[in-house]
């Protein structure tokens, strides 16, 4: 369990794309993500990320370059800024669950193994998992049996309640 008395959250790589203000991202979501980042910088939240987070962020930047949304130099600059910041501020966790158990969970929850890592972390720590990945959020939303996991949509930051209608 996460340390008592501290506000922990889990952030996925989709938030990093909003922090980098990659062209084409929704301005409303960027605003909310920047609000979250400011709160992190102010020490209101402690961030936990799984060990593969940096790799996911790098891959997202690579995709943005391939899609011509960013120039290579811009992507490298943003990537360095975000990874350095994360390295100093975030807590990188190795998966406490063993591999086969994680695969079983991914199957049971009908999510990819990458997403299962985040959800597993949320289950183990009790921290709120913030995402800008609409596909993952809707997948989680459609599974009321998974609503015991704290998953929140960045568009609603700082509200963590489950909406009547998904975004």
């Amino acid at each position, binding site marked *: 369990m996460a340390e008592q008395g501290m506000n922990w959250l889990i952030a996925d790589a989709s938030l990093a794309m909003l*922090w980098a*203000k990659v062209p084409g991202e929704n*301005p409303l979501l*960027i*605003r909310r993500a*920047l609000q979250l*980042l*400011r709160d992190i*910088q102010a020490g209101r939240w402690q961030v936990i990320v799984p*060990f593969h987070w*940096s*790799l996911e962020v790098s891959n997202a930047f690579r995709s943005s370059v391939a899609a011509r949304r960013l120039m290579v130099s811009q992507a490298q600059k943003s990537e*360095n*800024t*975000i*990874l*350095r*910041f*994360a*390295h*100093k*501020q975030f807590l*990188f966790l*190795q*998966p*406490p669950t*063993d*591999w086969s158990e994680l695969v079983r969970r991914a199957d049971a929850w009908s999510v990819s193994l990458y997403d299962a890592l985040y959800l597993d972390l949320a289950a183990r720590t009790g921290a709120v998992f913030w995402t800008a990945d609409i596909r993952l959020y809707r997948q989680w939303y459609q599974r009321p049996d998974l609503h015991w996991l704290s998953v929140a949509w960045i568009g609603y930051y700082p509200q963590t309640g489950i909406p009547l209608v998904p975004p």
Partner: protein
Amino acid sequence: MAEKRKRSRKPKVVGTMVVDGKEIPVIGWLEPEKTRRKWREMQREEDKALEREWRKVVKMMNKAKGSLLEVLIQQRNALRGWSGEE
């Protein structure tokens, strides 16, 4: 009973329109070009505000100096620990 407030100026009726079978006066039409201009202006202001905010957080993030190599080494160690645990 409260006194009825007197209008300083009567609204100018520019036309009429029919709502639920009744003809009602219309005091002004929307000008599409003016509305679009106003909307664009508001959008530009919002974009500028967002840009300012973003510059602030990037400045804060840039305070974290260090080598990216350290991050990669940490990643490698984390990956090595994957199969070692449990």
